[in-house]
């Protein structure tokens, strides 16, 4: 299966600090590929190299079979790019923004209407509104329309969901999945770990390095240690108590529950759960509920990061 993006040992430094350190990855044609990591991980730097905006210090990258350095101009015609913070002209209207980007690529809104319609139709009622006056969700849709208007062969979106509310984020991923179903290759970066399962495959990146690449579902089994979810009313008290357990490797809040990871790789989670529940009850947390769970992407990310609990 052909790869639309091939990155090999890519490195880039700024003022002596490595923003990217030997990054390698592949994105298959027609894939919805997610790059997940916190601020400063190197997501934007990687995307800027892929979109020919930055030169790498070492390594190579090919997009759609073209070299990002040597074939710069040809690539630029074929990539649809949406940088972080949307990069729209806030003093131009929705329609003016879109027609500008269309014209730069030698086309018009009318010519491309059918293709961008699923997205553009949602903001078309606001065609005359200044882009600066749009809500976060609408800016997303406009940014996406502008990136799509010239019929790109690949979409590169840098943190399109950052700072946007949960509803708009969900809708946006629905739109991306629909585009992927239509055959478009999409590379997206995000700091939100829970968006990983909306992607076909995901690369976890931190501190300029790729931690792991796989489908969202495949990460769990790699975890290698028992993981328990603990619920109860006195969450903070339980947190401290769990940390005091002799074999506790890490304890973190995870939404409504606490995630307890045990040091012993071969322990049976099913047997471990009632043991921990008992320990908590003895410590005075009578309503503690403990169950074994499968690790999610965030659990895996945190263990790969190597942070101390």
């Amino acid at each position, binding site marked *: 299966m052909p790869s639309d993006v091939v990155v090999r040992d890519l490195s880039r430094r700024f003022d002596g600090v490595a923003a990217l350190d030997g990054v390698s990855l592949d994105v298959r044609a027609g894939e919805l590929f997610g790059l997940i990591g916190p601020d400063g991980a190197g997501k934007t730097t990687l995307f*800027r190299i892929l979109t*020919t905006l*930055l030169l790498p210090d070492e390594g190579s990258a090919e997009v759609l079979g073209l070299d990002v350095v040597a074939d710069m*101009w040809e690539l630029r*015609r074929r990539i649809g790019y949406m940088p972080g913070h949307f990069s729209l*002209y806030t003093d131009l209207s929705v329609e003016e923004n879109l027609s500008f980007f269309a014209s730069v*690529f030698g086309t018009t809104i009318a010519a491309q209407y059918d293709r961008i319609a699923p997205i553009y139709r949602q903001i078309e009622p606001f065609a005359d509104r200044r882009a600066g006056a749009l809500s976060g969700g609408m800016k997303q849709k406009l940014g996406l329309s502008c990136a799509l208007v010239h019929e790109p062969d690949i979409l590169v979106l840098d943190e399109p969901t950052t700072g946007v509310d949960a509803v708009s984020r969900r809708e946006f991923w629905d739109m991306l999945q629909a585009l992927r179903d239509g055959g478009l290759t999409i590379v997206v970066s995000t700091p939100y770990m829970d968006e990983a399962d909306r992607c076909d495959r995901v690369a976890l990146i931190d501190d300029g390095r790729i931690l792991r690449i796989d489908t969202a579902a495949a990460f769990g089994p790699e975890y290698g240690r028992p993981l328990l979810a603990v619920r109860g009313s006195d969450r903070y008290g339980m947190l401290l108590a769990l940390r005091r357990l002799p074999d506790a490797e890490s304890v973190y809040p995870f939404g409504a529950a606490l995630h307890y990871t045990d040091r012993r790789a071969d322990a049976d989670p099913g047997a471990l759960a009632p043991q921990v529940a008992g320990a908590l009850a003895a410590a005075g947390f009578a309503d503690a509920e403990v169950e074994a769970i499968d690790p999610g992407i965030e659990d895996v990310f945190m263990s790969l990061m190597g942070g101390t609990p």
Partner: protein
Amino acid sequence: MSDVTGALLGFVRKETRHILRDRQTLFVLLMLPLVQVLLFGFVIRTDVENVRVGFVVPASDAATGELIALFRGSDLFTPVGTWPTAAPLPDLFERGAIDQVVMFAPGFADDLGRGGARLFVVTDASDPNTGAAMRTYAESLIREYAGQGAADLTLVSRPGGGPGTLAGTSGIETRVRIRFDPALESRNLFVPGLIALVLTIVSALMTSIAITREKERGTMEVLLVSPLRPWQIIVGKVAPYLVLAFVNVLTALGAAWLAFGVPFRGSVTLLLLESLLFIIVSLALGVFISTRAESQRAAMLAAIAGLLLPSTLLSGMIFPIGSMPGWLRPFTNVVPATWFIEIARGIMLKGVGLAYLWQETLILTLMAVILTTASVRAFDARLS
């Protein structure tokens, strides 16, 4: 109460820290006034020096010799030649080769002995600052020669221009003709400088801000990733300002002519073409500044400190170049406005054409070509 002062002091300390740590702005804020003071010191001269004076002497005699010797001996004048007739003069004035000429009537010494001699002093007043001064110097030198105390002499000058005469009880009657600007209306003379100033602001300052604003906003990224080439982005950014600047030239000229009655002796078309040339130079400078500046504020500072200020101080717009110290004068040649002002003054006030101004035009053209090439090259097709 000490809470309030404590908080205030803490805040003042913070503000001081901000200023001290912003090295670039600090440099400009400290160096700029210093440079300004130094430049102003050297550049502001209310006196005029090195007036290039010529003499028309149909017949030499002792008196002409003595008067000419007085001019020669004065530090203020630099004699450039003596001719028997006034024929070469118009051309010399037009070329800007001469500032002033003293014309003797034949039989000067005899007339003097008989109690009434006449001199004709013609001064190039196309530079507003120097015209009046040169005239006064010449007059005082002549008075000195005539041996009259100032109280005995009256200068008769006709309102609205025309030759003024020095009438004295005995001695020399001088007609002083101020050439090119009979009424010495300094308003007229400032217009070329003003046009240059306005064009520099609109073209260089605004263009550099427009491009860096795109960078700050983040939309530059998207433009760069598009098929748009650097030259297309530059032309697109610059074109509206070119039109704007041109409209400004028309407005300024229109206002000068209608509201102030500024004379326009030369070809309007030529002036507009030269203005266009100067606009292109300024635009290129604006683009060049924007390629180096990361923020709008930096672009503005660079444009003001690096372009506007030198243009105002060194172009001859306000302070005459002739009066600047020798070491400073070569720098004036680097300022594009210097050449444009020469050209504009020549066309508007002297009424000369390309034949006389081809050198200055050539220099401006060269500047335009060099700067445009440099700025397109400097405009990175990538983020750095």
